[in-house]
């Protein structure tokens, strides 16, 4: 178990460094020189160039530059935002909460409703509920978040006015903020929720038809016990996989949803920074979101350990 943890942790750290390398290298493969890219596409003046040389070590060799850049990163210094004329950290700090709240909200919605719908339709297989859930999930899986988001905003926000359709989601009490984020979170979660319910359904059905569940039925346990104790746990293994994978999707989907609903999160900031050629901010957000993504993958792998003894025994996912 500890050995598995160690291996998993070290690979995550390895991939994390590799991802910083990619973000770093992208700066150098872009058109024009790095200083120009960092300066929003314009050739920097002498003072700015001096700052870039000092901050990024642009006059050093490529490996040295990476080490200098990484050193700053490890101290939490993401550089300067040319659009905001202040440090990237100070630009990001007030916005990251909205993004985390939105993504977390969507993850909760996706997990709870996705698993609940999937389990129900797997257990009452072929009934009317199952039919509706299956057709619904087949359709909604294919609909992208931004379409759902825009349509939701129109239908529930503007026409029915159940929820606020716009608003920053970054002010007020937690309840007001959640109220503002309900519609975006639902829009963000919907297609993942559909997919999670689909996978859950087939996992539950697979388990219900498995030999060991059959064995439990023969041993005379009640259907309730057979379903809850014997079928559900095993069926959660693929479900955890898909939820973990979908969290990654939600992280990038949040960028689009924030933009669609005009939320003041780092997703909207990322889009504005790309449009405004604020490269240091783009780098910072890319690294933060990737870090979140890798962190979630790690958590998912640890969850496997809890659910599946075979993983613990083999020292890795089989």
């Amino acid at each position, binding site marked *: 178990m500890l050995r598995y943890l160690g291996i998993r942790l070290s690979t995550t750290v390895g991939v994390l460094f590799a991802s910083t390398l990619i973000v770093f290298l992208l700066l150098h493969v872009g058109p024009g020189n790095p200083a120009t890219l960092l300066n929003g596409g314009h050739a920097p003046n002498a003072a700015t160039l001096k700052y870039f040389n000092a901050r990024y070590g642009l006059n050093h060799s490529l490996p040295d530059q990476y080490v200098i850049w990484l050193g700053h990163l490890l101290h939490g210094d993401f550089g300067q935002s040319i659009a905001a004329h202040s440090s990237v950290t100070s630009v990001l700090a007030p916005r990251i909460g909205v993004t985390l709240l939105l993504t977390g909200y969507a993850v909760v919605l996706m997990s709870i409703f996705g698993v609940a719908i999937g389990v129900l339709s797997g257990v009452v297989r072929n009934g009317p509920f199952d039919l509706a859930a299956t057709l619904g999930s087949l359709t909604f899986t294919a609909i992208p978040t931004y379409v759902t988001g825009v349509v939701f905003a129109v239908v529930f926000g503007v026409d029915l006015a159940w929820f606020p359709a716009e608003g920053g989601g970054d002010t007020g009490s937690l309840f007001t903020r959640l109220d503002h984020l309900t519609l975006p979170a639902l829009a963000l979660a919907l297609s993942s929720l559909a997919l999670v319910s689909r996978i859950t359904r087939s996992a539950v059905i697979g388990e219900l038809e498995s030999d060991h569940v059959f064995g439990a039925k023969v041993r005379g346990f009640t259907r309730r016990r057979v379903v809850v104790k014997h079928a559900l746990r095993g069926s959660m293994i693929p479900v955890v996989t*898909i939820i973990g994978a979908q969290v990654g*999707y939600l992280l990038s989907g949040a960028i689009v949803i924030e933009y669609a609903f005009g939320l003041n999160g780092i997703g909207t900031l990322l*889009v504005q920074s790309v449009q405004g050629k604020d490269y240091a901010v783009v780098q910072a957000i890319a690294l933060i979101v990737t870090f979140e993504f890798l962190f979630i993958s790690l958590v998912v792998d640890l969850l496997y350990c809890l659910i599946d003894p075979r993983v613990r025994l083999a020292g890795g996912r089989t």
Partner: protein
Amino acid sequence: MTTSDPTLDVLLEPTEDLRHRRYGSRLLRGLPKVVVGVSIALLVVIVAAAILAPLLAPYNPNTPDLLNPYAGPGAAHLFGQDSAGRDILSRILYGGRLSLLGPTIVILIAFAVGVPLGFAAAYSGGWTDIGVSRVFDLIFAFPALLLAIVIVATFGTSFYSAVFAVTVTYIPLMGRVVRSACLVERQKPYVEACRLQGYGSWRILVLHVAPNIGRILVSQTTLYFAYALLDLAALSFLGLGAQPPQIDWGTMLENANQGVFQSATGVIFPALAIVLLVVPLNFVADWTLEYNRAREERR
């Protein structure tokens, strides 16, 4: 647009969770034929409409009519007019061209690069496999859309930049499918039998492995085409893809979203265009998958 591939897992482990054993009948065991038929018909109509846009479009898609912004649907403008009074129907028709061209390029390049890489990794094994797989893993370490955005940020916002960015994220997807399918196929007893009979590995590859993987690739490519379309539309929606005066459905949706308080109907048509293309593509992909699996089981 998804960073993972549930279908892939299902493909590679058909016995594990989706194939229903024993006597259970299966809901939607193969979609109803009607659904598949309607899906294919819809796809043909949409592709034809995009190709024939210059003949079908009632107006120039970029001619503004500033006196009638956000006009609702009517006899003169079937789908209404957008923020600048441009005819939405004409823009949908013309927008379909770029919306379809983008994923076509993405899939063609990803196929041309990813498939040989996947084959090479699976067949030569050793360092080639490790190298290729590590590079793929590195790209998978980023959420796909995020990586695409960063690439666009590096190379500038344009249609082709967006296509390039999305292609980068699809090459490893394609490669991984081929690699895993190849590895699974290679372990099957019949390949072993061929090898024992002394057939060369190229002969086995071309005659036995390739056709089987080809079937998986057909449904997977269909699905990836739909995903790539969504990714490109997402980039356009964020203003990072096609730039005016270019039109695609993503930019139309963004434009309509800006004016959502003036006209709610404006968002419906580009949204519908995307959905009516992507949902049938999913159904068709699902159907080819099911069709091939049924064939496999019959043997």
